[in-house]
């Protein structure tokens, strides 16, 4: 696309700077060339009339499974990258739980190359912490980092051996690599499928106790204290977990954390009559946990919210709850669900959108999530009033598995730009 574009009339919200005003955005050669004032000699090749819309940085999603390689029957890189931009997401981190897992540089390079050729959202791969996610031998973190990995994790294949965890953190900290860990103790989770509490008791579902999170989190925090490793705690689910993170940050530990967007809105009661779409990992917990997560995100103890996007095919969901594969499609629900959280929490739009733009970008240490002169023009033009019903007809993702299926949400990306190029137009 030729270089010069003006976006006129949009209310520009940049959470990083706090800017919130109707401002013209001038784009040249894929980057933001001016805000409010055109650069000298600027002549637009095209103009987008964005009156009534909000322009914010393209969303940065800390966890979206693209299912390639290995799970193309669930989703393809192309289908999920289209879902990303349809949801206003322009940068995403993908966990290493592909088949094979992202444990060697060739796979990472291939993924990056395929993603670049699609020219939709930007991909930030998270490499496997251990070979094959087996939890025994370290993956070649240095090589993987060179290939483009921005951090290392076990995805949902939990590390059950604290010795391996300790050494992985020591090794990673030697080179300053960031390690992303799910705080769940697999022995305490004990094959459970739902939050331990009244709902699991009524439904007879095997429980995952709160301590599965807090014990794991205390282990992680103790090892961070010892090793000084940079750790990102992925997917908090309990009120006590939020409290532990608050203390750890007050103590000055180099830790960040996120929450999945479903956990801001749903709790164990939403499992209802064994709805397999509400089978998530970590499990949906008590309503008090949900409320603590909402507050934790608002106060900044929780750094970011992510979609935790996991497209699952019908065959893996049309089974009894306990046998259903965990996960929900989320890329296109992230924006409306975050807006809903912000409205309900009484937050101003910059504060709300910070949780999906500048704050996750800081965790990735990526040049994204901001609207500023010189930055790439990765933008989301959203209609904050647009109501839409979640259905297989309205989702671009190949995954239709969502507990919000059939419900009306408010707020949608109308146009998404990456490098100044319109990659999605509703």
């Amino acid at each position, binding site marked *: 696309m030729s270089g010069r574009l003006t976006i006129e009339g949009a209310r520009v919200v940049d959470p990083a700077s706090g800017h919130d005003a109707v401002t013209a955005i001038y784009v040249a050669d894929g980057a933001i060339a001016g805000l409010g004032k055109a650069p000298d000699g600027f002549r637009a090749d095209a103009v987008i009339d964005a009156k009534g819309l909000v322009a914010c940085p393209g969303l940065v999603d800390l966890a979206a499974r693209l299912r390639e390689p290995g799970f193309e029957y669930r989703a393809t890189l192309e289908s999920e990258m289209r879902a990303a931009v349809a949801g206003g997401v322009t940068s995403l981190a993908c966990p290493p739980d592909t088949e094979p897992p992202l444990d060697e540089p060739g796979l990472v390079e291939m993924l990056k190359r395929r993603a670049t050729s699609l020219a939709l959202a930007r991909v930030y791969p998270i490499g496997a912490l251990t070979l094959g996610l087996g939890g025994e031998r370290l993956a070649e973190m240095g090589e993987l980092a060179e290939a483009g990995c921005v951090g290392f994790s076990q995805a949902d294949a939990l590390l059950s051996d604290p010795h391996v965890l300790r050494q992985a953190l020591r090794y990673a900290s030697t080179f300053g690599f960031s390690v992303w860990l799910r705080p769940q103790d697999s022995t305490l989770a004990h094959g459970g499928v739902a939050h331990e*509490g009244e709902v699991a*008791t*009524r439904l007879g*579902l095997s429980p995952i106790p709160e301590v599965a999170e807090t014990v794991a989190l205390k282990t992680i925090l103790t090892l961070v204290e010892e090793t000084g490793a940079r750790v990102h705690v992925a997917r908090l689910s309990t009120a006590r977990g939020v409290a532990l993170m608050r203390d750890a940050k007050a103590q000055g530990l180099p830790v960040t954390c996120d929450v999945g967007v479903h956990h801001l809105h749903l709790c164990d009661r939403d499992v*209802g*009559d064994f709805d397999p779409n509400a089978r998530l990992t970590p499990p949906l917990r008590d309503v008090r946990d949900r409320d603590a997560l909402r507050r934790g995100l608002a106060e900044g103890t929780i750094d970011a919210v992510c979609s935790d996007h996991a497209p699952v095919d019908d065959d893996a969901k*049309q089974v*009894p709850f*306990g046998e259903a594969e965990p996960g929900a499609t989320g890329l296109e629900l992230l924006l409306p669900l975050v807006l809903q959280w912000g409205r309900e929490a009484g937050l101003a739009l910059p504060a709300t959108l910070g949780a999906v733009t500048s704050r996750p970008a800081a965790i990735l240490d990526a040049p994204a999530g901001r609207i500023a002169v010189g930055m790439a023009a990765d933008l989301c033009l959203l209609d904050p009033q647009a109501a839409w019903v979640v259905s297989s007809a309205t989702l671009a993702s190949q995954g239709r598995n969502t507990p919000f299926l059939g419900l009306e949400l408010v707020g949608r990306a109308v146009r998404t730009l990456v490098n100044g190029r319109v990659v999605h137009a509703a």
Partner: protein
Amino acid sequence: MSRSLQLGPDGRLVHLLSTEGLPAETLRHILDTADQFVSVNEREVKKVPLLRGRSLFNVFFENSTRTRTTFEIAAKRLSADVVNLNIGASSTAKGESLLDTVWNLQAMDADMFVVRHKEAGAPHLVARHVKPGVHVINAGDGRHAHPTQGLLDVYTIRHYKKDFSRLVVAIVGDILHSRVARSQIHALKTLGVPEVRVIGPRTLLPADVERLGVRVFHDMAAGLRGCDVVMTLRLQSERMSGPLLPSAGEFNKAYGLTPEKLAQASPDAIVMHPGPMNRGVEIDSSVADGGQSVIMPQVTFGIAVRMAVMAILAGNA
């Protein structure tokens, strides 16, 4: 919770998945209908034509000859055609999904499915996917529910105690893994039993069980004091020693129902067990075979209660 799935828009029972969520009048209707079938079962010719021409499929993904037989007898006494499928050993081993199995059977014109499965909620999944007019009876799903057992238990209690409104009922043992206990609790609470107690060690009680409306006791003597009904539960052998319990012997000492412990209950208390019993573990033989035991009548009433459920689902009662 299962109300919408179990009851049609007119409030009629369309599936029996759980005793939870069923209104008291529905439960009483089942018990009253069972009364009529008890007399059928006492006749020389124990057969009525209510389900003639209908097919009932016993689909057991988890083996249980005993439970399956009671459903088979109940269906045959209603003149239904009965097909028994022990799926645990066939289709799923070949990788066929639960729904594929059910759709295949439905194509053979089944009118009613009796489903047992190791996973909680499996019968709900089936109920959600069968054609209108096809009924599903939950014959036990994981730890969740075993509604016909719960109903036959409250039937037995009503038979001996007449009135639910002044009873103290204790359920003893492994509540955590027990679908029977859950079904009993919901049925008893809905029918107006003012005090339902659960008695067991903390390792065998599920989280927040008191929110089901029961009182929790860890001490057997205190829990049994003044009870009108004592319901013991089967303790699965794989749970007798491990992280939940040190040994069957220690469990028996603390929670096994012996004549001495039973003496804490009302003198006219009845003793129940869903079977099969581990004599000398959760219940001593002298109690199981003693004057206060109604364990054999439970089995007899179980046939009538299952006949009642089938007849009501078929729209003939």
